[in-house]
């Protein structure tokens, strides 16, 4: 069997009053961007903390590059970089010092240290602010610094807990580009959690949807979306014969009306539209407008958990933490 970056087998974590994680199994390939998606309190952060040996598991087995996290925690921690959900850069130090301390804690030899820190500062576009106090940083810069701290050791797996929480859309996009770049250039395996559908869709190669401690479903964003049905193309025409023509062309119609409007279900809708329009034109049917609706991960989430992710209420502590993180980021 090929070595997996992360292997989780039937993992459970019990707290006195709740089952935070309940019989979860999955693997993550080397060099993959893997995301756990779910509402607050679904057990995503608990899984990350178990993988990082910060908390003990109750039952099951967890391996990082074939190393058992319960048996050799120090070796596991050496392979990992971690960007927690909360603000974890020290505001009372400069950016350079923040990275320096972590480079030292990972046992990086003194000779390499300086070049590596400069490298990682440059990579995350922080060189100019290297000697400024971190408490003067914006939220996006703070996040970049935290990723720099986690990357200075060149970890085999980088754990990102809600990497873009509390960031404005622009800063969020910058972080996304960076995460992809890290994987593409260094082959770093990236394990992230998010409750943002869009983020999971844009970033992840594969997604596991978590709900109430269970892994509801696992797959690539495209796979998951295809399980909720294909793309829907809506065609508007003044010609009442339109529906008939579309039917003749062999498409499956889900709704139609006598005035020339019809919805069809296809896969790969964007590739199909030109072909469809050409066929209709050849049949002398004038089309007024066409629209395409692709299924979203939100539809997937709804299907597998029976709830919309936005509607889920986090615990008071979670909410407070998220808000606090947000305040710190935006002050």
């Amino acid at each position, binding site marked *: 069997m090929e070595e997996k970056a992360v292997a989780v087998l039937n993992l459970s974590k019990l707290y006195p009053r709740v089952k935070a994680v309940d019989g979860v199994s999955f693997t993550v390939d080397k060099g993959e961007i893997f995301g756990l998606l779910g509402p607050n309190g679904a057990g995503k952060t608990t899984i990350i*903390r178990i993988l990082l040996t*910060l908390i003990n598991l109750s039952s099951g087995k967890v391996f990082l590059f074939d190393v058992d996290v319960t048996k050799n925690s120090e070796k596991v921690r050496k392979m990992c970089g971690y960007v927690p959900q909360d603000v974890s850069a020290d505001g009372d130090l400069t950016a350079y*010092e923040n990275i320096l301390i972590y480079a030292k*804690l990972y046992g990086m030899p003194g000779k390499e240290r300086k070049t590596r820190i400069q490298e990682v500062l440059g990579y995350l576009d922080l060189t100019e602010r290297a000697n400024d106090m971190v408490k003067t940083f914006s939220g996006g810069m703070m996040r970049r610094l935290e990723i720099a701290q986690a990357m200075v050791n060149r970890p085999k797996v980088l754990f990102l807990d809600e990497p873009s929480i509390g960031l404005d859309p622009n800063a969020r996009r910058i972080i996304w580009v960076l995460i992809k770049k890290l994987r593409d250039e260094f082959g770093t395996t990236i394990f992230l959690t998010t409750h943002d559908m869009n983020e999971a869709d844009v970033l992840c190669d594969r997604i596991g949807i978590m709900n109430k401690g269970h892994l509801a479903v696992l797959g690539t964003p495209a796979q998951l979306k295809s399980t909720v049905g294909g793309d829907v193309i809506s065609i508007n025409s003044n010609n009442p014969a339109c529906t008939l023509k579309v039917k003749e062309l062999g498409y499956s119609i889900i709704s139609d009306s006598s005035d020339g409007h019809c919805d069809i279900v296809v896969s790969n809708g964007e590739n199909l539209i030109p072909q469809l329009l050409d066929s209709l034109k050849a049949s002398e049917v004038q089309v007024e407008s066409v629209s395409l609706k692709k299924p979203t991960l939100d539809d997937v989430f709804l299907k597998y958990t029976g709830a919309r992710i936005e509607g889920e209420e986090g615990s008071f502590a979670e909410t407070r933490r998220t808000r606090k993180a947000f305040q710190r980021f935006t002050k």
Partner: protein
Amino acid sequence: MNLGSVKRYFSSALIITELELRKIKHDQSQIWIRLIQPALWLCVYGLTMSKISGLTSFIPKGLTYLQFMTPGVLAQSALFVAIFFGITVVWERDLGLLGKLLSTPAPRSSIVLGKALSAGVRGIFQAIAIIILALILRIDIILSPLSVLGVFVITILLSMCFACLSMALASIFKTRERMMGIGQAITMPLFFASSAIYPISMMPGWLHPIAVVNPLTYVVDAMRDLLATGNLSSLPVDMLAIVLATLFFLILASRGFRRMVS
């Protein structure tokens, strides 16, 4: 445990200390603010009490009250700095700094040791300042290289000891509000049940057993021997007691530390 892992253990502890030192470097005002209280004890309480003529008959022969009290104030001010260390740790836990520290390969107890050592460094600043203050007030203290070095060593141990106690309590009580209360609830008993500002012989009888198990008693005793009386005969016993207490609380804090993030 081989030599490599011992080396790594102490080097990670020193990195944590370096982190704290760099913070102090960026904000030195915290050092000055912390000097207000001991200055008040010496200048107001000390100078007032030394006017009471009967007091000198209770303290060791040949010492003025200020000589007697200076080592006590030094010990107390380092204690006050160290005992609230748990609050910092709780704060760092809440911010997420602690979780990230614990995710590094640094052994957990070396992080505790590093934090304790940085409390020691803060204590040293207190010690230096109080010695200078004593010189300004023309209090006659012994300032040989040995006594100053000895006082520094004891200050570091004392700060480590109570910082570890505070961190151990933080892993149980877990919130800043409770830790504020706890810090206040235990500093005064520790302070009053030691010979910091009056000799043990003056205490009510029921307090004696508490004074005997109070690490601060030994700290004050050792400092007084070094700075005031110059009679070092009980120093080895005092040092042993301080080292044992420090080790005990260090182990206790290390064991509790993991609970901080779970």
